[in-house]
């Protein structure tokens, strides 16, 4: 339906790319406030500045981790560079594939979203259990703990995105106007991971096996998401299902934006938005239902 996808495209552009930084911040703040007022029955509401709290906790996490390390955040460059090197070597020398131009950049477009997703989801899953002393003794909205865990992975993500964009420029694919899609898409991805992490962290409190389920799912994901192969090679029937997975959708769109200077497909964007927001809301609901029983099980 060309009209629908056109409307979606225009709507997307206005809402996300059109918003200034403070506009986006206000939107996130509004979402948090509204979700805070989703009825929690007899619960006593925490009153305070959510964004300031999250910011403080994320910075705290960052400082604690890197205070005494010399190279600090630069270590987060190591993994994608190594994977990029290895995969390039394998698929161009050892087992040559039908020529994909700019293979290192191609692979990196797959590795960065995949890396972020796996690390953020796993960190989010164990966040409640890892922060047991805080949860048990300090009254604060517990969703904040999980969201903080996911957002503190964004610092690595930022470094890796800089790497990605640098490699794009070095490969000769300079800056193009499609790059303005990137903040919106990454924001949606982060929202998706937050939702997923809230669900799995709540379950993890009661069933500590959940983290192993997440680890296994991540292993499978490496093959389901076209990290080192092109989605063109997949049977055409499966492609619409493939990009319901927000990680795959992001990888495919990243390649379109960086390699081909094309905007992401409207259908993909629509699915990304719908799936991300659905998972976020579902995650909040599941977390809120399970929250009251955390105390006894940590």
């Amino acid at each position: 339906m060309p009209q629908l996808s056109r409307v979606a495209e225009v709507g997307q552009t206005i809402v996300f790319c059109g918003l200034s930084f403070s506009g986006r911040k206000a939107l996130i703040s509004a979402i948090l406030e509204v979700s805070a007022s989703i009825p929690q029955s007899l619960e006593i509401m925490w009153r305070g500045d959510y964004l300031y709290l999250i910011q403080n906790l994320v910075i705290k996490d960052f400082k604690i981790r890197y205070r005494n390390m010399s190279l600090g955040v630069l270590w987060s460059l190591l993994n994608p560079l190594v994977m990029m090197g290895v995969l390039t070597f394998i698929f161009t020398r050892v087992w040559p594939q039908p020529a994909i131009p700019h293979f290192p950049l191609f692979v990196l477009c797959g590795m960065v979203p995949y890396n972020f997703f796996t690390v953020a989801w796993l960190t989010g899953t164990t966040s409640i259990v890892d922060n047991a002393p805080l949860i048990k003794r300090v009254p604060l909205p517990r969703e904040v703990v999980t969201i903080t865990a996911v957002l503190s992975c964004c610092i690595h993500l930022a470094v890796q995105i800089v790497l990605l964009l640098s490699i794009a420029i070095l490969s000769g694919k300079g800056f193009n106007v499609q790059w303005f899609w990137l903040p919106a898409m990454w924001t949606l991805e982060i929202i998706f991971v937050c939702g997923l992490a809230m669900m799995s962290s709540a379950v993890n409190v009661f069933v500590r096996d959940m983290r192993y389920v997440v680890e296994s799912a991540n292993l499978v994901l490496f093959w389901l998401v076209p990290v080192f192969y092109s989605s063109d090679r997949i049977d055409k029937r499966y492609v619409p299902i493939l990009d319901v997975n927000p990680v795959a959708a992001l990888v495919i769109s990243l390649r379109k934006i960086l390699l081909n200077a094309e905007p992401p497909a409207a259908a993909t964007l629509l699915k990304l938005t719908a799936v991300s927001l659905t998972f976020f809301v579902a995650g909040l609901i599941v977390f809120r239902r399970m929250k009251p029983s955390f105390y006894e099980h940590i």
Partner: protein
Amino acid sequence: MSISDGRPAIIFADVWKSFARHAGQLLIRERVMHWIRSQHPERFYALREISMTANHGESVAIIGHNGAGKSTLLNLTTNLCRPDRGRVEVNGRIAALLDLGAGFHPDLTGAENVRINAAILGLSRRQVREKFDEIVDFAELRDFIDEPLRTYSSGMNMRLAFAVAVCVDPDILIIDEVLGVGDMAFVDKCRKRILEFRNAGKTILCASHSTVTLLDLCDRAIWLDHGHMMEHGPIARVVAAYKAAMMPQAAPAGVGV
């Protein structure tokens, strides 16, 4: 929900709270086995049929032996856990000092910890900026505020935690056995601040072993014993009853009055 609503600050209506014993088995395997065998783990009753009301401006002490349920009662008030039965209602902004270590991190400086804890207690960015100096001056830690927290003594930790909680200007202040660590000068300062609180119409809920401090600070008390509320009312009466019940254990040693 504010003081002017006319509702009491804290209401406990017929509250029961229990915990499952052996809550350690959390693997899928064990849960399935429990479900197949229709086993229900025994429960430990921390609080039984507790009903109490604290109006704005009252300061209520909670006394009792170790394990009587004092901390559980405070946890229910701050919504860290929910009651099995009954209702807990709180009207007003809470600042809770339940565990000095919990919100603090030893690797960060005093200043960083103050900001984090102020945010956790509900202050906005602007309010933290305005109150920062007040907090540091109350804690008398101006010289050490940029040192990492692991270099602080436990008294200094307590002063910092207390300063943050008090300067948040809550309607209800909840304290769980943390007043013991400060030196006399600071305990005196805290006392004065808490009395100011009372006069300003704020509510205080305080659990402690030190009946001396409590006699000074609070006007009402609740005595808990193994989860039951044994006595409640004016503090002098409740403390006297508590001491009378504890005394028989000291008698055989023949210690004088």
